């Protein structure tokens, strides 16, 4: 039955095998494809079509084995029930860029010998305990081991294997983070500092850059550098809501504690995030003061505040979200103010339409001016929607109002355009 299964698979493997003969013409041109010789002509099948040349133009034909043909021959000579022989062939196929054939062979080997280390490794599998796992499953297992405190096996076996098998750069960064975290939890503070430093660089240089990871890692480096003995002094209990909510969950008391404990590292990061939030709030206050008289300077301050809040969010996810919502809300309020002023101008012009006896030219000019006002308000509303959509839960009212107003404005614009067309 095993042999029957092999045969089925191998037919699939061999189906793609094609010849690669070399046809050399007297004018020096060379073609590589499948050559067939006829009475007066030589025909060569190429990937893009078939060419036919008179025999007289042909200098020579080199009939060659393609890698596929060679593979077929080797396969015929290989014992299909010998996993090691199949493995050698799969390795050879891999070197000849026959990755699909190699992959199929590795699959066959694992059917013969489920624990074949070479085949598993070639397929990017990682051994954790007695199990061979794919990269994602192995990464999850590794995280579990970290939580369980199995640092030695992680550092000595699992993480080096994961490092070697990481299929993408993002996954390589994840493994690096896990490595740094494991070093930290196993109290190898100087190693952890070095790995987090490398990680910050790698994350910054990644395409696209993993900015949050780079920021977080760089801050951890600073924290570890300032506390080389791995001791951090907490000013408040952590998580901060624990004393308020009488939380029964594990929490850290104020005072000295080891950075090897994840909650202590989180508390240290939160202290840094707090500084960023305080700096951001100062910019926000300055922006608020500037907004009525100098909106451009206010916007610069808002941007600076947002940078601080982004850094804080990189350290502790969503810690500054409420403040970022504040920025959006204030910007929306300022835009609303502009839009309201525009709406008042529009209403004034609308009033003139009804009461003044106008020349057709003046009437048209007025309509065009009204359309201009509506367009300007429409742009404001679109910007409001764009801003509010980033925080749909918090800015639900702003979003709904802007959407409703936009619908109204589109309808009004259509009516005015119709009136303008009618008057022409």
């Amino acid at each position, binding site marked *: 039955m095993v042999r029957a299964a092999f045969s089925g698979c191998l037919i699939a493997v061999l189906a793609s095998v094609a010849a690669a003969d070399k046809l050399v013409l007297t004018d020096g041109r060379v073609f590589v494809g499948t050559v067939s010789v006829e009475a007066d002509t030589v025909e060569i099948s190429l990937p893009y079509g078939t060419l036919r040349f008179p025999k007289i133009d042909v200098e020579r034909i080199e009939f060659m084995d393609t890698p596929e043909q060679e593979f077929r021959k080797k396969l015929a000579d290989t014992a299909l029930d010998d996993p090691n022989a199949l493995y050698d062939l799969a390795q050879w196929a*891999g070197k000849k860029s026959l*990755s699909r054939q*190699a*992959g199929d062979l590795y699959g066959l080997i694992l059917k013969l010998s489920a624990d074949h280390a070479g085949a598993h490794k*070639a397929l990017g599998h990682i051994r954790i305990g007695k199990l061979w796992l794919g990269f994602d499953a192995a990464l999850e297992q590794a995280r579990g081991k970290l939580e369980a405190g199995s640092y030695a096996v992680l550092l000595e076996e699992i993480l080096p294997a994961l*490092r*070697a*098998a*990481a*299929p993408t*750069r993002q*996954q*390589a960064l994840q*493994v*690096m983070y896990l490595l740094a975290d494991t070093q930290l939890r196993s*109290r190898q*503070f*100087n*190693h952890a*500092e*070095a790995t987090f*430093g*490398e990680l*910050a*660089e*790698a994350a910054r240089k990644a395409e696209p850059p993993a900015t949050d990871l780079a920021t977080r890692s*760089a801050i951890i480096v600073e924290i*570890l550098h*300032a506390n*080389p*003995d*791995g*001791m951090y*002094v*907490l*000013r*408040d209990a952590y*998580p*901060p*809501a624990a004393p*308020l*909510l*009488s939380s029964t969950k594990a929490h850290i008391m104020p*005072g*000295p*504690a*080891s950075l*090897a*404990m994840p909650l202590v590292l989180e508390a240290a990061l*939160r*202290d840094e*995030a*707090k500084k960023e*939030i305080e700096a951001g709030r100062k910019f926000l206050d300055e922006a608020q003061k500037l907004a009525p008289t100098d909106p451009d300077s206010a916007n610069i301050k808002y941007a600076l505040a947002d940078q601080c809040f982004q850094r804080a969010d990189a350290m*502790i*996810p*969503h*810690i500054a*979200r*409420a403040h970022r919502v504040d920025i959006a809300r204030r910007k929306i309020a300022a835009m609303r103010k502009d839009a309201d002023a525009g709406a008042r101008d529009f209403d004034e012009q609308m009033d003139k339409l009804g009461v003044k006896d106008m020349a057709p030219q003046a009437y048209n000019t007025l309509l065009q001016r009204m359309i201009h006002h509506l367009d300007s308000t429409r742009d404001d509303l679109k910007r409001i929607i764009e801003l509010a959509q980033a925080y749909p839960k918090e800015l639900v009212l702003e979003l709904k109002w802007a959407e409703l107003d936009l619908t109204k404005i589109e309808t009004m614009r259509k009516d005015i355009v119709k009136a303008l067309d009618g008057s022409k």
Partner: protein
Amino acid sequence: MAASKYYIAVFALVVGAASVGAAIFGSPSFCPTAGQVQQALQSLQDGQYAQAQREALAVISSTEEPNPRAWAIVAAARQRSKDYTAAATAYRQFLSEADCPDARQFAIEQIQACTTQAQPWPEPPTSPGKRLNATALADLAKVSDRTYAESSEHFVVRANNPRLAKLVAVEAEVALDRICRVILAGQDYPHSVTISVWPDTKTFHANATDAPEWAGGGFSYSSANSLVTRRIDLTQRDAKGKFATVMLDRVLPHEMCHLVLKELFGDTHCPLFLNEGLAMMAESQVDNSRIRLAGRTVAGKARRRLETICLAQQYNVEEPIVFYAESYSFVEFLHGRLSGQQFRDFLANVRQGCHVADAVQRSLYMPAADSFSADLANAWEDHAIAQSQYLEALAADKTTAQ
């Protein structure tokens, strides 16, 4: 597979460039005593305070590589084993070696905390009314035809009794200090307030026209032509013509707290529960009936949701006595559980228009969580019930003893 090889190469390059990374971030710091420090921290974490102290002191006194940062472990171990005087000494040692502002601030706070803890438990303050004997009470009930004025740092007191004017000025300063320093956690109040003590309810209402009919005191804050007037009106005597001690004990600090909050919040609306809760906290003696009522209500079927309490307005409050008790209980809970700085930040966030749960989360510098409102309500309800049950148990003990 080719891609995999590419990323392995990238990874190897990144790992191989360790020296480059180190050059960018500076050489990783190495501390030779890290192992011993970690051991001491583990003992501290495990509650083995004597061992933690021994291990930390060994690091400090090491002849090769002394690490004075370990004084923090010694201090914490002593503090957690309730040896506050020795803990304060260790914190001072840590303070002298700490190079980080946060660590220094922490040491200063802990020295203060340990010093306070090391003192004998202070006697609870006596309310001003209880300090007065029968002669004083009779004296303070007298009403002269003349109006006497007495001034202090923040107050100008007018009353038809010279002793009363003086007493009110003194007690007003005491109450203001408690409100600003303790309740509002360091709020300034650089203003002057006029306090008028009217002989009876009739004259009080004739002069304090904004005060509700049932009230025995009131405050007003008005501004005209850049001139701000701050005023508190009080009643000297009760319906029986006796000196109203409640005026000193409760009405004066209560109204003063409203006035300070009015100043603090400016044009922004101060939620009713917060305004009344803080004003009740300002009173010079805790009214246990409020605590018991709040606990009973929260535990009963008629309990109202915290959300309803936080959003209540003067005109839509049902069962005002229960609402006031719940407001007091919730504000006292928040005040007791948050640090002074956190409570001040909380007030600032409410002033900026934040909802209560949002204001608390911002003051704690924590990511906003959807479940926080419910968690806060549960924690407060548990607190209210526990406080109430404690008082009920005390009352039961007293009855049994009698």
